[in-house]
């Protein structure tokens, strides 16, 4: 153990830090998930016994309540497609209307929606929300990490597409909570990739990250400077990825084949389409069979046809790159490099188009499938052990309110650095109006119906006034995870209403509580453990503050007074080491009480010496 540790102000690790579980970085992907851990700024991707790092983001719900994830679920897929679900990330925070059909059939079977409006799927005889299914993936990821590290893992940095909206971010955080993981931070995938590259190569200057994953496309422009990763602008499409390539190919196969298609058929066509696409990253031709039910059909695909199919999608990504650069006033030639991220950047045509637009070969020296998890792991280490690097991210989409006529009034513009808080005043439009509907939306369009609806709430109890007299201040706050809180208050009376934005397609608090109860391993755990940890860190903080004060101003106390304070401090230490939350809170209050006269004397002395100092200055001038 170190005898002397020097920390930045406010960064001293709390004494319990060493006893906590490990913190990992998780890339929760549409197609595959990856977990990594970092120590001393070196990240290691955690693999299974066979050396594989990718965990397919597939979940199988089998008879007898058994749940299989990853390769185990893939093995079941061809025999029992109705029991397996994939690409669940695309449904995070989404409603049923957002789903993409294939030849008229959805590759999912839709169940009754959750209370909060979030879509639910029928899989293997169960009805599950995307949050619960993602939680099952995260449980498997956590188990993989715990096996590889032979230690408990209970905290994580989880990556999300930069273009994920508030609903999808909240859904991701909820899934982690269900899986028994404390989310240290949600980090944007391109930012995590930049962190991995930047620390690896000590790069400086302007860099772009082109991230084409299974389900989402992100493009971010960053400035790297002496350990600072400053995102300048970001753009993307939360529903454009390798899955859409698969959809285009599967659509062609199903047309060639003809006949009716159900959700199982759609699912199987997607499996064969993906196989064909992956083959064509290395060879020029593919021939295979699509078997749905009793009937098998033969299909062939060559690289030219594939490229024709996916060409419009690849062009769309380049269009997004162009817009982001133009918005930021940056020419491609000014970039120090373009980093490729995501499995879909393996498609040769995608690489060609990126190289063509940016006028240079893109960087792919860190495995595009693993780079995001590596960055997440580095950030997890930075958050738990302190670091000199700094990630400064932005909001991907503008946030605003519905005003008269279905127009959007933007409160926070896209590409604003987070955390951010902004407020704007609104007024009533009718005499005597006593309530106001606050409708929060996210997006760039001017009309409400073209933006994503995040939440609605009502500010009630506005006293009767003539139209336009009330002053309603609506405040938006986005934290470092990109999560939004909105509050509204009538200024002349102080009536207030505050909500953490519960997405229109989210889970209600009740649903979340029920799921937590039902997930056996965390039935009692989650809430109680959280409260206990909070009481412990708070008491430790208070004790450490008193000890610092004793070291500086101890001379203000009689020895009996000091002995009394130190006795209470000893009891705080003992309580914090135990598990009795009430005891910790009680003794912390006692400490507060007994140190009051001490604090008063310290303040007196501080003020006296400040006055004396000012007096000296006055004499000098």
């Amino acid at each position, binding site marked *: 153990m170190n005898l002397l540790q020097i920390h*930045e*102000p*406010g960064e*001293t690790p*709390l004494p319990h830090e060493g006893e906590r579980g490990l913190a990992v970085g998780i890339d929760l992907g549409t197609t595959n998930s990856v977990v990594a851990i970092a120590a001393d700024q070196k990240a290691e991707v955690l693999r299974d016994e066979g050396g594989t790092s990718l965990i397919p983001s597939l979940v199988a719900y089998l008879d007898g309540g058994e749940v299989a994830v990853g390769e185990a679920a893939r093995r079941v897929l061809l025999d029992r497609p109705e029991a397996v679900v994939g690409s669940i990330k695309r449904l995070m925070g989404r409603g049923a209307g957002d789903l993409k059909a294939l030849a008229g059939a959805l590759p999912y079977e839709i169940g009754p929606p959750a209370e909060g409006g979030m879509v639910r799927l029928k899989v293997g005889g169960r009805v599950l929300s995307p949050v619960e299914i993602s939680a099952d993936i995260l449980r498997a990821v956590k188990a993989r990490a715990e096996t590889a590290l032979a230690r408990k893992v209970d905290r994580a940095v989880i990556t999300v597409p930069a273009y994920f909206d508030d609903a999808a971010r909240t859904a991701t955080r909820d899934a982690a909570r269900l899986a028994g993981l404390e989310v*240290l*931070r949600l980090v944007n995938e391109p930012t995590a990739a930049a962190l991995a590259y930047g620390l690896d190569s000590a790069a400086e200057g302007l860099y772009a990250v082109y991230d084409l994953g299974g389900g989402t496309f992100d493009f971010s422009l960053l400035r790297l*400077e*002496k350990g*600072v990763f400053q995102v300048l602008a970001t753009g993307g499409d939360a529903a454009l990825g390798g899955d859409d390539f698969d959809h285009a190919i599967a659509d062609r196969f199903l047309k060639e084949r003809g006949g009716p298609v159900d959700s199982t058929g759609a699912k199987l066509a997607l499996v064969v389409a993906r196989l064909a696409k992956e083959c064509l990253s290395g060879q020029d031709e593919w021939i295979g069979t699509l078997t749905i039910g009793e009937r098998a059909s033969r299909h062939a695909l060559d690289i*030219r046809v594939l*490229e*024709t199919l996916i*060409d*419009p999608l690849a*062009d769309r990504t380049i*269009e997004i790159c*162009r*817009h982001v650069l*133009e918005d930021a*006033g940056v020419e491609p030639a000014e970039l120090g490099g373009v980093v490729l991220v995501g499995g879909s950047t393996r498609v040769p*045509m995608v690489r060609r188009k990126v190289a*063509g*637009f940016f006028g240079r070969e893109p960087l792919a020296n860190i495995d595009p499938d693993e780079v995001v998890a590596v960055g997440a792991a580095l*950030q997890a280490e*930075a*958050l*738990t052990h*302190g670091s*000199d690097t*700094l*990630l*400064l991210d932005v909001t991907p989409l503008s946030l605003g309110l519905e005003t008269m006529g279905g127009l959007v009034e933007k409160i926070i513009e896209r590409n*604003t*650095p987070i*955390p*951010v*808080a902004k407020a704007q005043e609104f007024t009533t439009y009718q005499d005597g109006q006593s309530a106001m509907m606050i409708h929060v939306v996210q997006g760039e369009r001017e009309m409400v119906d073209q933006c994503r609806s995040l939440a609605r709430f009502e500010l009630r109890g506005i006293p009767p006034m003539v139209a336009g007299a009330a002053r309603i201040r609506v405040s938006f*706050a986005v*934290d*470092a995870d990109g999560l939004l809180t909105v509050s509204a208050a009538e200024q002349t009376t102080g009536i207030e209403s505050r909500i953490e934005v519960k997405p229109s397609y989210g889970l209600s608090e009740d649903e979340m509580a029920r799921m937590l109860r039902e997930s056996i391993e965390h039935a009692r755990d989650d809430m109680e453990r959280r409260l206990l940890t*909070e009481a412990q*860190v*708070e008491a430790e*903080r208070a004790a*450490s*503050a008193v000890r*610092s*004060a004793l070291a*500086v*101003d101890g001379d203000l106390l009689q020895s009996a007074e000091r002995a009394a304070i130190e006795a209470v401090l000893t009891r705080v230490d003992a309580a914090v080491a135990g598990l009795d939350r009430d005891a910790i809170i009680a003794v912390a209050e006692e400490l507060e009480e007994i*140190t*009051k006269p001490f*604090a008063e004397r*310290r*303040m007196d*002395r*501080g*003020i006296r010496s*400040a006055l004396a100092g000012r007096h000296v200055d006055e004499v000098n001038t």
Partner: protein
Amino acid sequence: MNDVAHKITGAGQPDGIVACWSCNGPIAADALFCNTCWAVQPPRPMDHFARLGLDIRFAIDTAELDRRYFARQRQLHPDRFATRTPRERAISQNQAVCLNEAYEALKDPLSRATYLLKLRGIDTNPDGCNTIKDPTLLMEQMELREGLAAADTREAATQMLREAEAHVNQSLAHIGGAFAAGDLDTAGRETTRLKYLVKLVDEARTRRACFAPAAAAPAQS
């Protein structure tokens, strides 16, 4: 207090001494951290320049602005407090919000000029901001916009964009000179002009984007 510590704590409006929320001891009102228990302190009201430790002036070195902003974010960003108590996390978030607000207001010369004028009691954004009262400015802006509307190739739009950018740079030089000379009337008038010119640059960019260059044409199939 030594010189270094004083610089770190900034030069806001020293309202004397307040109590640290954590150890209850005395600290300077504008301190970022308690110098006894090192707890992070909530942001106090101060102007954006003071927040980032800069003198109140229009001509700022943007590299210096970045350095100061990064240095403060390194100390105060919520990532530094991820494992601390909920109260410390909330305070650090508030500090980071204030730093971002100050940085955003000062980084861009137009918003910096607007903010400086506001500090001096001049509102460059009176309601009904879409009306131009100054006839010379009105004529100039109408001519520039007519020129942009007539640009019907990428080259012509690029030409208009360059012209607009040149006007912006010239306007910035005027504003800088006016602030340096303490001529707030000219600074105010020119800032209003800059607002329209910056909009013109945006419109020129949008216009140019309508004529995509060859690279965006559909690839051969």
